[in-house]
């Protein structure tokens, strides 16, 4: 209970500070915390990445296994994205089946990957109508200090870019690497008072009444948007956030995904 009450009390402090042009950790309104991406750290996974944004840490693992295609897409592989908010990562996370927050996290990341058509699902067909590769993206937050979604989305695409197809394990032949055609990057922004801030930490996320995640691609197109929170955003605010989101995504892509561009 203490943690929630403190979050409630700190709202006023965070709000007043932001109104005076400052952030709790001294960043500019449009700055991310320090980001790090470590790839291929789980050798049991076909692809993996540990992404840290400040003290937030998310581990993403990709597994592939053969399965039966959906009847309406007999020549396409299957993509499944799942997130588990394990209680070790935050006192706010509870044991139990996926709740609305973990489902939302997984679905927003999934939408970015799917909407950008980053994975060529047709290349994941092994035998039309019979056997295709099922690709599982599992999002495993380790430490939640705010903005899990950007870390998870970056971890997902960083993992996919390094994913090997485990042909040998299933005695199959074919391409050994996953072909990735785009690099969707999520950028989350909040509104506090009349101010727009990127990459909210936990205190800021608690103090914000609305939040917008914009997922954009290498060519500047958008392939996923999620507005959450309890307050409305105006059209011009959204326009500003979308533009900012695309700009920040470009910076992150260049710095953390550029050297492994497919």
């Amino acid at each position: 209970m203490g943690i929630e009450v403190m979050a409630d009390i700190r709202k006023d402090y965070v709000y007043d500070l932001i109104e005076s042009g400052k952030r709790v950790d001294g960043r500019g309104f449009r700055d991310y915390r320090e980001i790090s991406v470590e790839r291929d750290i789980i050798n049991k996974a076909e692809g993996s990445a540990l992404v840290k944004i400040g003290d937030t840490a998310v581990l993403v693992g990709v597994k592939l296994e053969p399965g039966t295609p959906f009847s309406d897409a007999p020549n396409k592989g299957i993509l499944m994205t799942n997130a588990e908010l394990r209680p070790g990562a935050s006192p706010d996370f509870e044991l139990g089946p996926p709740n609305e927050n973990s489902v939302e996290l997984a679905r927003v990341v999934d939408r970015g990957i799917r909407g950008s058509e980053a994975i060529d699902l047709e290349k994941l067909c092994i035998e039309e109508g019979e056997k295709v590769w099922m690709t599982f993206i599992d999002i495993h937050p380790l430490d939640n200090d705010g903005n899990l979604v950007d870390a998870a989305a970056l971890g997902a695409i960083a993992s996919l870019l390094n994913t090997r197809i485990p042909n040998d394990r299933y005695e199959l032949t074919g391409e050994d690497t996953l072909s990735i055609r785009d690099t969707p990057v999520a950028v989350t922004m909040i509104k506090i008072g009349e101010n727009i801030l990127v990459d909210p930490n936990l205190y800021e996320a608690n103090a914000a009444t609305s939040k917008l995640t914009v997922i954009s691609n290498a060519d500047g197109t958008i392939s996923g948007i999620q507005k959450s929170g309890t307050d409305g955003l105006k059209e011009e605010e959204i326009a500003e956030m979308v533009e900012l989101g695309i700009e920040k995504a470009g910076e992150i892509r260049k710095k953390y995904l550029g050297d492994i561009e497919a």
Partner: protein
Amino acid sequence: MEKEKGIVVPGDFLGTSEEFTPGEGVYDEKGNICASLIGGVSISDKRVIEVQPKVETPPTLKEGDVVVCRIEDLRDTVAIVSIACLKGHEEREIAASTQGVIHISNVRNGYVNDLQREFGYLDLVKAKVIDVAALRLSTEGKDLGVIKAICAKCKSNLKRKGNTLACESCKRVEVRNISEDYGKGLL
């Protein structure tokens, strides 16, 4: 504090009960005194042996501690509160049962006639522990009292206006025992 050994960890043997009296951060098992925490060993003039922790230990309450609590129930002479956190240890839950009380006689320096004019339901209150066993708290003192409150009618936040609190939405005015830290978001 006589001497400092290096760092010890739980289970490290420190001495026997013939040599020392066990203090904090140690335990006595059949005459053997061992560390129960990670830290440095200190021995007082009176041969009390202690481990001064190098880790943050679970917050527990003692007399004089300043806490933040939430008003859960208001009766005629007493406010029932749940204690949320200990000042200086805001990132960690209190390692104990947290139900406490503020008696009408400990609300402020002076006579209080009506507790309803001092606190409201779900107010967040800064208070001082005056009795650990019964978890009795006091709000006597300028920095103590209500630090955050919501409007009884519309549940919006109340803003401080002089000695009263005004609702940002419905303009309702309420009275409270207000702390000088009201609305600052800090303890």
